[in-house]
């Protein structure tokens, strides 16, 4: 389907609104336009019509969702012959001829340059890398322009070994967040680069790497693996890429030694005083009391038990919103959330009563149960005095 049909001078043939059962028709229609434009109709040889004389009838999936809306029909490859696709494939890809066979002017292959210029503005073409094989000077000029606009900054002699899309857990922001970009492993560094606006979001020289650890964490309610990196100064970074193992292996291979080991990094990196250790931690909802302009609401964060206390950290800003030392806990029990809540996960709640009141945590029942047992183990054995 040629969405640019009006440009063909046939406003009456509104192909973009037609839906073709198969691409055969689409192609013929396209052919018809040609013919109309040339003022003559040429029949397509019957031997070329699908199913007649063709050795391998080919499946041309029909065009559905032609306007990009979601129908109740299944999704099928569309064969709409949008100019953008055809251009991309026919001008940039496919076989080309060896230089000694090609038609050239003074040894420079000029093929298609004007044609490309006719089809797209030069800037667009440069943007889309369409000039790659062409004019050397244009390319050089563009390379210079491009260098200031988001080329990966590499030192001399630095070679990229692996490039992977991924994200970095950034704690510096107003609220900590995953910042996406491309991770580059070179023979010298490991860094995260964001193209636009160009910025190195994180970098570490390979010889400063102390250790690596792969650990699962829940992300958007699903388990996934993340990579923790420890530097020689003791700081750590937490990253995620689609293929963690491949990245880990590549780093170790480049550095030339095994780096994977158990690192003692608390979940969410909430800073703990010396001598305090995380015993158990789990993502739970916390019924946040109304405060200032904020109303009472369930919020997601992490409930952690250390050897000394229990605390909950809000995941949005990594701030500790609630804490209580174990010796102040009076009792812990599982119950139902009496209050109305649209979060179904919070029907079952863990209720912790302490000297100052009580707090509610919501989440998966099994996990709540496990947490309850862990808390009970930590509460000092003393007669509970309920007043």
């Amino acid at each position, binding site marked *: 389907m040629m969405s640019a049909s009006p440009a063909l001078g046939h406003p009456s043939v509104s192909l973009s609104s037609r839906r073709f059962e198969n691409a055969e028709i689409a192609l013929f229609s396209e052919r018809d336009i040609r013919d109309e434009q040339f003022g003559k109709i040429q029949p397509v*040889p019957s031997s070329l019509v699908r199913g007649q004389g063709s050795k391998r009838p080919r499946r041309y999936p029909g065009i559905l969702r032609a306007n990009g809306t979601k129908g109740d029909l299944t999704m099928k490859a569309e064969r709409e012959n949008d100019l953008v696709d055809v251009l991309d494939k026919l001008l940039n890809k496919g076989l080309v001829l060896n230089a000694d066979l090609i038609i050239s002017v003074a040894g420079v292959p000029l093929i298609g340059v004007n044609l490309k210029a006719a089809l797209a503005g030069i800037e667009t073409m440069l943007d889309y890398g369409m000039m790659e094989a062409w004019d050397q000077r244009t390319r050089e000029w563009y390379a210079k322009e491009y260098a200031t606009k988001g080329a990966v900054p590499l030192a001399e002699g630095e070679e990229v070994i692996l490039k992977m899309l991924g994200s970095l857990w950034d704690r510096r922001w107003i*609220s900590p967040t995953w910042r996406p970009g491309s991770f580059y492993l070179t023979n010298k560094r490991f860094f995260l680069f964001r193209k636009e606006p160009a910025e190195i979001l994180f970098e570490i020289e390979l010889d400063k790497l102390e250790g690596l650890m792969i650990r699962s964490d829940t992300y958007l309610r699903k388990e996934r693996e993340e990579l923790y990196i420890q530097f020689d100064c003791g700081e750590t970074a937490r990253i995620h890429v689609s293929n963690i193992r491949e990245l880990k292996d590549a780093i170790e291979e480049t550095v030339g030694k095994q780096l994977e080991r158990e690192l003692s990094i608390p979940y969410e990196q909430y800073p703990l005083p010396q001598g305090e250790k995380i015993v158990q931690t789990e993502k739970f909802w916390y019924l946040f009391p109304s405060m200032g302009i904020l109303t009472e609401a369930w919020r997601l964060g992490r409930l952690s038990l250390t050897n000394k206390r229990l605390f909950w950290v809000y995941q949005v800003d990594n701030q500790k919103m609630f804490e209580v030392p174990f010796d102040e806990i009076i009792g812990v029990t599982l119950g139902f959330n009496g209050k109305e809540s649209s979060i179904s996960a919070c029907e079952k709640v863990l209720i912790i009563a302490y000297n100052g009141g009580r707090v509610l945590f919501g989440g998966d029942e099994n996990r709540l149960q496990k947490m309850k047992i862990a808390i009970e183990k930590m509460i000092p054995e003393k007669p509970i005095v309920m007043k």
Partner: protein
Amino acid sequence: MSETQEARETEIGESRYLYCIVNCDAEMSLGEIGIDYAKVHIIPYKDIAAVVHACSVKPYETRDHEKAKLWIFTHNYVIDKATERFGTVLPFSFDAIIRGNDDTVKDALSKGYEKLKGELDRVEGKAEYTVQIFCDPEKLTQEILIEDQELKALKEKIEKMPKGAAYLLQRKFELKIKDMISASIFKLADEFSSKIRKYVEEIKVEETSRIPERYKDKKLIATLTCLVSNEKVEELDKVLEGICNRRGYDVRFTGPWAPFSFIKLKEI
């Protein structure tokens, strides 16, 4: 008839415009389906053949947008016709012209025979498909607000507040939404990249890609070019449907194309 067309015809026969390489061992004509209605014929060598038309030594050049478009579409049309008839082909880029006659082409085929035959075997029964995954940030925001009670409450609060007072909160709200959208995209990419890989022979992530006009208001997340076995297309379809059915996401799936992006030889 325009001047250039006339000039072309006077010099006809001195070169061959190449469309593709196919599996075929006999000379034949495909009719006048070529560029500017040129007669397309087949030049075999052993069991492979080049699909060509005779043309002048001049490359096809024009500054006329419409004409260029017709040429390009016709080039692809011939490739499609050849594919229908001979199975998966090795497509040429537009404007690949050999100086010489049928024998010159035969000679080129004989020199490159091993490589060309190897490539034809490799892509047999497969086709190229392009998958573009888009998202609609507005719809994703709505989704996030349904999921996240706290953000929803914040939004409602902002709406009730006077403009000046709401500014900082609004800013914070927007930043948070932006982060959550990128998180959602990463989650989707994670989930589907392994699923998509299962049904494709080869996959390429396009660094640059062009977007059709009607998708301009959406955000392009990725363009993937995949070499897919004919029998696996339906399954790939289903996986993509899975993405499409998510609110806020959209997939543009085009094909089958000749394997433009997957030919391992760059030139013959």
